[in-house]
């Protein structure tokens, strides 16, 4: 079964490597990404990701529109976690401006960001099942995500590109009854979550497909700058929410409201696809706990700090990284005191995480290659920006 063993057998036969073009249109690339594989029969002997098919000049746009006007564009790079993107960008600008955010706004931001994390991980869960041929978990995941999107629709009016968290706070307060619906969502989600685990995560075929596949050792993960579930799947206890807390997370960590799931190599080697998947699935439940904490502690109050109508950001620069569902989403903004940014750099976690494919996708079977791409859980909108 081991790839190297097969390779030895193959060496007796004269074979020729074949170039296999996976993508830009391929069901496993989760968007328009192309991976040029060199294959020897079913064995992938080399892979090279080619990006840029979805490049939309987000950083250049950031240098051309006003600070607040850039907000809708942040929705669009990691479109599965738009709330987190809004949060990251807003925090970066706030960091330069040095303004204080009202507590209720922070609560709403945290609730939304964590709900969005659940939604994003649900997609990761569902599409990973889809990559491995299990179609039904995908639709179950969408069922819960649909509710999450309906919640966002109620609070901000949009289902995918929210533009809800803004510089200085949030746009709207929660409508009446919204918080109790979030609570109901949490209760239902906890039950459904168990089904996800039974249906896919602990399925024997699934374990056999993902355990020992695409192993990323901790050292390699750090060298490649991987963050998020990829890093934690390799057993490195690193989560910005816990280690460099921002917003309310310092309090939440102090209360012990959530823990950081880590890959343990339970069914195979530490850092394999199963571990990464496990981290994502477990994180969904931790996010529910965070949302619950916020619901317990939220109090009425202002939802936006005092900021001028036409935003002028003082000259300066800041880098703010937040924990996106896919890893560290960094925004590096430079201002010269005007209405428009000088530089609006986005450090997309998908972009960085994807780089590891070149090294991991060697000596694996074609089916494993799909499993590895799926386990990095990239959003092509973010890799290409």
């Amino acid at each position, binding site marked *: 079964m081991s790839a190297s063993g097969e390779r030895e057998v193959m060496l007796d036969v004269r074979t020729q490597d074949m170039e296999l073009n996976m993508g830009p249109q391929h069901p496993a690339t989760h968007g328009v990404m192309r991976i040029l594989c060199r294959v020897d029969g079913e064995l992938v002997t080399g892979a090279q990701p080619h990006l840029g098919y979805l490049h939309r000049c987000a950083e250049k746009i950031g240098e051309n*529109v*006003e600070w*607040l*006007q*850039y*907000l*809708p*564009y942040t*929705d669009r790079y990691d479109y599965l976690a738009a709330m987190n993107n809004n949060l990251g960008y807003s925090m970066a600008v706030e960091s330069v401006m040095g303004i204080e955010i009202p507590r209720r706004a922070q609560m709403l931001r945290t609730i939304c960001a964590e709900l969005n994390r659940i939604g994003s991980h649900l997609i990761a869960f569902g599409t990973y099942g889809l990559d491995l041929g299990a179609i*039904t978990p995908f639709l*179950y995941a969408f*069922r819960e995500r649909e509710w999450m999107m*309906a919640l966002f*629709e*109620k*609070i*901000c*009016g*949009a289902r995918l*590109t929210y*533009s809800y968290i803004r510089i200085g706070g949030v*746009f*709207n307060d929660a*409508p009446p009854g919204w918080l109790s619906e979030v609570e109901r969502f949490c209760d239902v989600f906890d039950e459904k979550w168990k*089904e996800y685990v*039974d*249906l896919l995560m*602990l*399925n*024997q*075929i699934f374990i056999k497909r993902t355990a020992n596949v695409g192993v990323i050792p901790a050292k390699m993960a750090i060298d490649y700058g991987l963050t998020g579930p990829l890093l934690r799947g390799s057993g490195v206890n690193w989560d910005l929410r816990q280690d460099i807390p921002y917003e309310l997370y310092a309090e939440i960590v102090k209360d012990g409201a959530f823990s950081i799931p880590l890959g343990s190599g339970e069914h195979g080697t530490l850092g394999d696809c199963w571990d990464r998947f496990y981290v994502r699935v477990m994180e969904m439940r931790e996010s529910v706990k965070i949302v619950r904490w916020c619901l317990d502690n939220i109090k009425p109050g202002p939802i936006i700090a005092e900021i001028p*109508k036409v935003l002028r950001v003082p000259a300066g620069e800041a880098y703010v990284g937040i924990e996106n569902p896919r890893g560290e989403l960094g925004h590096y903004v430079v201002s010269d005191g005007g209405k428009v940014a000088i530089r609006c750099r986005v450090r997309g976690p998908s972009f960085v995480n994807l780089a590891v494919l070149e090294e991991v996708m060697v000596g694996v079977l074609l089916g494993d290659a799909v499993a590895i791409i799926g386990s990095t859980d990239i959003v092509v909108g973010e890799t290409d920006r």
Partner: protein
Amino acid sequence: MSPTTYIRNIVHSVKSTLIGMSITGKYLLQKPITVQYPDERLPIPNRYRGIHYLEQEKCIDCLACARACPIDCIEMDAVRHGKELEWVSFTLDYQKCMFCELCVYPCPKDCIHMGTEFAFVSEDRSEFVHDLLSYKGMAREAKTRMIEAEAKKKAKEEAKEAKAAAEAAASPDTDDASDGAEDSNQGESEDGAE
């Protein structure tokens, strides 16, 4: 492969298959959660960011929404007649619009909103440039107001001219006083129009 692993593999496979089948089987017997879309529709929340609508009577053509738009998809054009507006166009290009709602917040009169309508289908691209105006030109009330205001103004001016002429005839030193009276009169007529 040891015999125990061999047997464990078989047992685990069968077991997890049965667990999976019990979950999917459970849902097979439940009522689906989807709705038959064109016949049934899910409720749309009030805050939904759909196609815009404009309360034209309130709008003062201040361009705040157009300036707030990140992609400049709002274009408006109106001719001012004193305080009254003669509307030419107020278009939103839905090929560009990304429904971010940034145009709604800066409005000083709170007159542009996003509705709950979302379906917008056409075979022709030009139809996606949507005119939000409910009427073009001037509203009848505005028109009458304008005519009234103009008539008033005219009457006043005539009166003033007559007065001025009379005063000029009487003494050439009272110009300042007549100017002040004119200003205050104009202010009143504007208030009335609003």
